[in-house]
């Protein structure tokens, strides 16, 4: 890496070299039986340089040499963006646990056994369900150096599982699924099984009709993530804010949401796959309050966007395909409410529970509007879940709904890197036949 940096420094004033290496072992079960075992290795070098004030990027994977990497970046720097930022120099980095040696030690046989028992569990719910399961372990190492003297590296591990099932009756299809991904070797298979069983039990009772109109809707953690996160992610991103495209752009310090709502980007949370001691351009990680008790506190920035906007990086730089592609979130956390999910349901005379939504992030997310087809959702009648709803669309505006939250669950859980409880909103528009 030093060779690349030195080579780049001969021609450019600023240079940064990023190296990532990872190996992944996925085990897949289809239709209840072992399908394939894989071993994947990948290694990449990324170079950013600034020559005569202009920025260029290049990435090599595989056979290409160091010279080619530098030359490709120089070609881009001929017409690249004019920039005036500084990259970070040495700094004290926080201690973050991102690696557990035990993950690498999990045997492929163990992963196969666990997959088998997940599939068997689904099969026991109903013999007609076609079960699938995947378990994957991976480990990676990251190394970053730059011309300002920064040098940092860390190792991380990731252990994840997914359990799913498909039940087809004529043209009526039910998709069940639950998954988890952590840094240690201790996956909570019990929880995943319970979730799938709950989905099955709720859906299998009957298919229920719904009349179009406004009604109370509960979003489970997964449903909330699918419906609300696309708009929150884009509107809290410093780049969207700087370009003036975020509806929250001028609202820092203002109360924008219900007081019960807080949101933190927890970059240093121990033992979560999205955590790290420094971001992808070497800024030390921190925990960043984005919204506290409904008041908007922060947007996220990488170094270049921060320089453009005249603020500081929030240690949020993320790479896509090797290049620093802007700012991104790590672990987004919404603290729990107090109400158990079943009590929330018990308080509703007629409404819906939304668990999986199709097409939620594909509309005009910038505006906060979302809508989607309820892929997996249930009818609530007189305080009880009485069956599945289908051919139903829900729609609303994220920013409007979060101003008046009906209730929040005590059941917070990670969906990918989002930690949220269930949410209840008293009036959401539901369109049906």
């Amino acid at each position: 890496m030093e060779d690349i940096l030195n080579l780049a420094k001969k021609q450019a004033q600023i240079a940064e070299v990023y190296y990532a290496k990872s190996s992944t072992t996925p085990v897949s079960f289809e239709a209840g039986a072992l399908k394939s075992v894989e071993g994947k290795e990948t290694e990449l070098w990324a170079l950013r340089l600034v020559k005569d004030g202009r920025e260029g990027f290049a990435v090599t994977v595989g056979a290409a040499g160091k010279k080619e990497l530098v030359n490709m970046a120089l070609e881009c720097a001929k017409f690249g963006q004019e920039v005036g930022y500084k990259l970070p120099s040495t700094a004290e980095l926080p201690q973050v646990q991102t690696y557990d040696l035990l993950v690498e030690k999990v045997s492929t046989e163990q992963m196969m056994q666990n997959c088998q028992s997940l599939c068997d569990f689904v099969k026991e719910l109903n013999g007609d369900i076609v079960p699938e399961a995947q378990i994957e372990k991976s480990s990676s190492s990251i190394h970053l150096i730059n011309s300002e003297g920064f040098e940092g590296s860390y190792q991380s591990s990731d252990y994840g599982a997914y359990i799913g099932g498909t039940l087809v009756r004529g043209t009526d299809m039910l998709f069940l699924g639950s998954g988890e991904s952590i840094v240690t070797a201790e996956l909570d298979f019990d929880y995943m099984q319970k979730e799938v069983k709950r989905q099955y039990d709720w859906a299998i009772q009957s298919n229920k009709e719904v009349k179009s109109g406004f009604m109370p809707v509960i979003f489970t953690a997964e449903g909330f993530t699918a419906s609300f996160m696309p708009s929150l992610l884009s509107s809290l991103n410093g780049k969207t804010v700087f370009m003036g495209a975020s509806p929250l752009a001028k609202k820092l310090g203002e109360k924008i949401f219900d007081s019960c709502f807080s949101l933190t980007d927890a970059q240093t949370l121990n033992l979560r796959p999205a955590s790290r001691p420094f971001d992808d351009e070497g800024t030390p990680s921190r925990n960043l309050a984005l919204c506290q008790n409904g008041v908007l506190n922060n947007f996220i920035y990488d170094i270049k966007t921060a320089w453009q906007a005249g603020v500081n990086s929030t240690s949020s730089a993320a790479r896509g395909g090797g290049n620093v592609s802007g700012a991104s979130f790590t672990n987004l956390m919404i603290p729990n409410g107090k109400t158990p999910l079943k009590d929330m349901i018990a308080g509703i005379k007629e409404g819906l529970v939304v668990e999986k939504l199709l097409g939620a992030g594909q509309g005009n997310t910038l505006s906060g509007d979302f809508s989607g087809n309820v892929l997996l959702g249930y009818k609530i009648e007189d305080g009880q879940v009485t069956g599945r709803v289908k051919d139903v669309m829900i729609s609303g505006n994220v920013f409007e709904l979060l101003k008046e939250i009906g209730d929040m669950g005590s059941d917070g859980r990670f969906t990918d890197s989002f930690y949220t409880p269930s949410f209840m909103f008293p009036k959401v528009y539901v369109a049906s036949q």
Partner: protein
Amino acid sequence: MPNNMQEFANDIAPWLKKVQADYAEVRLEEGKSGRISYRGKLLEVASRTADSGGCVRALYKGGWGFVSFNSLDELRNKLNEAVSLAHMAQKGQKSILADVNVHHQDIKPNTSVTPFDTPLAAKKEVLDQYNEIIWEHKDLQTSMLGYYESWKKKVFLNSQGSLIAQERADATLSMSAIAEKNGQVQQSSLSEGALGDPSKLFKLHGQIESHTQNAIDLLKAPAVVGGRYTVLLNPVIAGVFVHEAFGHLSEADFLYENPQMQETMKLGTVFGKKYLTIIDDPTVPNLRGSYAFDDEGTPAHKNMLITEGVLTGRLHSRETAAKMSECPTGSARAINYRHQPIVRMSNTYIAANPQGPSTEEMIANIKEGIYVKNWYGGQTSMEMFTFSAGQAFMIRKGRIEEMLKPIMLSGNVFETLHNISAIGSDLSYCEGGGCGKGGQYPLPVADGSPHIVINNCLVAGA
């Protein structure tokens, strides 16, 4: 020591034939790409990438082992590794493969012109022109503009003796204009692609202009009242519809292990009216979803999915074809050497209906409905689909009236295909699409259709 991909392939070929497995294949790739993107008036990233690597897949007593890697130096070890993983996997499913002939081919690109003939800086000049057009508009909040070009050479070889080299280059251009007024944000997007010669991507000045104006006009547009409507789809969004709503359902990897699903998708089942024919065809010349061989070495050919309303075919890999006692269709594609091939679409389209009504006649026949153009994206769960449209207009009493804010169309595939009440003759393709499945995104595809009318379609604001 071999020093290029072809030599590595020649080196490993004899070992591949002696492998301790029922079947094995090696895929080697080298590629390069370039990207330029703008946010608003500013150039955001200019970058180049060189990527090379390979993978080995082995089948032993019905179990699959797969390894992927960047260094080709220890190819023989990698072959052994894949075989030992396959030995581990033999305890599960009994995968089998349909027969495919042995092929020796060296496929050259469709044209001698590639995006790499001119430097990235030359494309930047065209993008600067586009950005000037965008920023002549005053009410604009921001914009995004992106150009991406890639070249790739792939070598496929298997234990049966096939050796197939394929080379391709393609390019895509995307833009979004984002307008804002009083806290309301609206956007309009364009996405186009080209296989080989990218020059059509540098002549989009008119479309860039109209999309920018569209984003601004959307600010004044009313939102749709949700409900069921007769919708007229232009070829762009009808193409997305056929890809999302039906194309994914015809991918046999969702069927071959699911007896109930096979019953639902039994060949001969009536899916629509006489004039509905749906085709997936990787051999249409010069489209982004076109190719000569898939990533299992099966030759590509035209697949009739629905013929005159009746289900007549589906898309297969060698494995799904064998399990369902049908023929492989050349539809096993991998986005790159890091992944196993899975069943995918290529160029998917609704065939033109020569007797069909003109677009004017379609509009004239609609009492109340929506004319839908352009798209944001789509998603499917087999039975249900959603797709969203960036441009929509009310139709009343046979006339196009006010513009609406973006809408989302959703429905049940099976019902909706029956509800197609008219298909025109003006087939055209959109090549800007990238399809995602099983973590493999964006796979180059093209979608196509004439104008079509769907009755009783569920519509909501997007």
